[in-house]
């Protein structure tokens, strides 16, 4: 299996003029990129603006992307440079905290204060999405939950997960897919049913 093959296939399509393929890349990396940019700016809305600018710069620079590095590595560098330039131009100093320490109460409070700048409906929906996904993960059978968490949280490859769970790679692929499907079923109801749907689903 070649690493980054899926991103590369989308990138090649964009390079051939298919803008729809770039949508898929934005959807895949938008949350990671916003999280990354938030190491440099305080405001989530501002982080989104910078992430948006980074995506557009990446799109314009894609003809020069040859695939020597992974697409996300390349995008990551663009986002970092865009964020640094934004910080310099606005004469702000970067926020020095690690977003990975999310269990820290102080960090959580800080995030809570930052959310004040968001629209109330957006915040409620974000919280609802989180609670829906977390509830769906809790309801998963143990083997599915372990597989999806090892993949998403630890970033392990299917082969590594197969070794950790002592099962074939095909089983890992199937477990991750079934876990995603179970979560997605609940999530889709939230998006299609509107706010408050998560509580109804219990």
């Amino acid at each position, binding site marked *: 299996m070649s690493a980054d093959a899926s991103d*590369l296939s989308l990138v090649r399509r964009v390079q051939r003029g298919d803008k729809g393929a770039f949508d898929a890349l934005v959807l895949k990396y938008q949350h990671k990129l916003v999280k990354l940019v938030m190491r440099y700016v305080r405001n989530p809305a501002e982080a989104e603006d910078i992430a948006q600018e980074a995506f557009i710069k990446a799109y314009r620079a*894609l003809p020069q992307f040859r695939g020597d590095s992974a697409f996300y590595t390349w995008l990551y560098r663009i986002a970092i440079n865009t964020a640094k330039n934004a910080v310099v131009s606005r004469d702000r100093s970067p926020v020095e905290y690690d*977003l990975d320490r999310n269990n820290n109460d102080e960090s959580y409070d800080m995030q809570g204060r930052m959310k004040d700048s968001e629209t109330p409906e957006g915040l409620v929906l974000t919280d609802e999405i989180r609670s829906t996904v977390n509830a769906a993960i809790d309801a998963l059978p143990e083997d599915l939950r372990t597989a999806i968490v090892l993949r998403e949280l630890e970033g392990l490859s299917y082969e590594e997960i197969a070794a950790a769970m002592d099962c074939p790679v095909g089983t890992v692929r199937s477990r991750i897919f079934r876990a995603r499907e179970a979560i997605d079923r609940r999530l889709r109801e939230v998006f299609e049913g509107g706010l408050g749907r998560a509580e109804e689903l219990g």
Partner: protein
Amino acid sequence: MNEELDSQLSAMFDDELAPAECELLARRLSRDESLKARWGRYAIVGAVIRAERGVRLNAPLAGRVNAVLLAEPALAARTAPRDRRYARLRWWQPLAGAAVAAGVATVSILWLRTQAPLGGTTLVAHVPAQANVASPGASGQGDSYVVPRPKPAAALVPSTELANYVVAHSMFSNPVARGNLLSAFMTSEAPASGTEEPQSDVKALAH
């Protein structure tokens, strides 16, 4: 929705799909909005599991980027003028290739002509006298082949040697190729009149 397709989508999201399958699915993903929405929700699931706090999960970022890019020319269109310039420069390349091939062929023909014997005097055929006639049934070891007698004056000695060589190695060659080669030799060595008595010089070359 096709479960196999969704399973592939999940594997592609994790970069665990074979490149050939990625190519096909990327094409479908870029056009199918429901598939793209599912792809986006997979990203949300990952963001929640990684507890990416402070990130708005309903952020219309993809929509905003898409709206900006709508005003942009597609990348293929942007690079097209350069391609057209190269295309203008490239028209002579097939002609140059053909010219080089013709040149090589001409030089080869001239070289072969300089190597050919003049008058048949430089090379002498050494045909064993005792190998004149072979009775096909006598040896029982295989087919007999008829090799025409070399012309005494302007004999094509080198081609006779070549024919002998081909016949001697015919057992190891493809039957079709063998037939073609032999018939070519027979034809090339037949007398111009076509009335000459069949060979008196017959050689059994079956191995």
